[in-house]
């Protein structure tokens, strides 16, 4: 763990200096600032922010993660010739990528709320969105590392990263819609809850909607969803699912990393 800490500190140092993280922070700041300036309504700002978070965070995280891992190959190689175990190094690099990116998002996202004094207006929503953003960052960095550890070819790896994003952000929901249309005669509510657990973006989206866009989601389907996702148990289960989306790719990629040749 000592070693992890050392690597982590260096990685954070290195990542923070990258202009991309600063740009990323600034992006979220500008979006929030703009939304509060032009709309003023916190609830509307929340929905817009959620839309941006569930699209931008996965995309940026998976691409940034891949690029970062490919660019770290030399560093990894050099570090592995030093007395350090692969596990510590890997955890250090993973956290060293995910933490600065999460922090970038967290700061850029929170600042407008603080500046406009909007944190307390919907405090639960603020923290939920912050949590979803950070969890999604970790999920997609974990996925990007899984890709990069397995695929040595940088351009193929990046292509795969974008493909996975596209599948989770767009294609998956298309399939969900097809399921809904084809199986319209069956009670689908519980199946939908299970389906959404297999997509971290959907999970984040639904978790948040249950707190905010509730009115629209009533109806029978909404009621079933609300009963699950709106309950403390549902929130905990959803967060556990999101954590599984971090832990499973991370452990898989860690296993590959341990056997990898440099």
């Amino acid at each position: 763990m000592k070693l992890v800490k050392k690597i982590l500190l260096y990685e954070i140092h290195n990542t923070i200096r990258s202009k991309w993280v600063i740009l990323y922070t600034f992006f979220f700041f500008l979006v929030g600032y703009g939304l509060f300036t032009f709309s003023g309504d916190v609830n509307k700002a929340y929905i817009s922010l959620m839309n941006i978070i569930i699209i931008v965070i996965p995309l940026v995280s998976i691409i940034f993660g891949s690029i970062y891992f490919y660019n770290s190959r030399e560093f990894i190689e050099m570090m592995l010739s030093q007395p350090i175990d692969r596990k510590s190094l890997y955890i250090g690099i993973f956290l060293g990528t995910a933490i600065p990116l999460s922090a970038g998002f967290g700061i850029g996202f929170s600042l407008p709320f603080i500046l406009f004094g909007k944190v307390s207006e919907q405090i639960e929503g603020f923290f939920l969105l912050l949590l979803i953003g950070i969890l999604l960052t970790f999920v997609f960095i974990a996925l990007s590392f899984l890709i990069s550890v397995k695929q040595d070819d940088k351009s193929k790896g990046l292509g795969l990263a974008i493909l996975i994003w596209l599948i989770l952000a767009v294609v998956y929901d298309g399939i969900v819609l097809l399921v809904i249309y084809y199986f319209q005669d069956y009670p689908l509510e519980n199946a939908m809850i299970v389906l959404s657990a297999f997509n971290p973006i959907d999970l984040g989206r639904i978790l948040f909607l249950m707190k905010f866009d509730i009115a629209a989601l009533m109806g029978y389907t909404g009621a079933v969803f609300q009963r699950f996702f709106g309950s403390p148990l549902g929130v905990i289960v959803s967060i556990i699912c999101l954590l599984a989306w971090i832990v499973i790719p991370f452990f898989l990629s860690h296993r590959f990393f341990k056997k990898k040749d440099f």
Partner: protein
Amino acid sequence: MITVKNIAKDFGKNKVLKGINLTIDEGKVTAIVGPNGSGKTTLIKTILGLVRPTAGTIEVDGAEVKDDYLYRNKIGYMPQIARYPENLTGSEIISLIKSIRESSFYSDEEMRASFKLDREMEKPFKNLSGGTKQKISALIAFAFNPKIIILDEPTAGLDPISSSYFKDLVLKQKGQKKTIILTSHLMNEVQELSEEIVFLLEGEIKFKGSVKSLLEDKKETKLERAIAELMNQSNN
């Protein structure tokens, strides 16, 4: 002492090392030579643990190194091509390595001066030339005063002045009874620096012995010719 037992490594269908047995003696300079693709770098990386062998074991000072990593405290390594995180500086990397290595010994003033590195150490790597990065690699390999030094094509990117200083450095280490492993394309460099030689061809050891005995055996004064002769022999 480093003992390589039956080491084999496949990259897919490509068998890069085919059962290497090798003992590298303490306090000597051993050169690993061979044509491109003969497996020199793979062998070195296997010793370092960078490459996981398909079969066989490596022992350093009598202990198997499979899942150990602390043995690398004894090793200083200079890779073929020096590449570092772009946004960090040389001194930051060195202080990171310092914090990781057990031994607190570190001395680089002389090397810094001779390589003219003082200023360069504070610049981020993205602003440094390949040669400068190579010099920093040398610093990392030597300055911790390790028992074993592994150098992969060390002089490839260096200018003649640095290159000659570098050779002096190796000879000085040799005088201190360090175990040094070296790969090089330059046979005169090998002849100049090393006592033992291992000739690799297509993943197999074709010759292992002292430089002296090889020259005597082939009745040559230049190592280059002796090696060429070895290669011809093997091809026939």
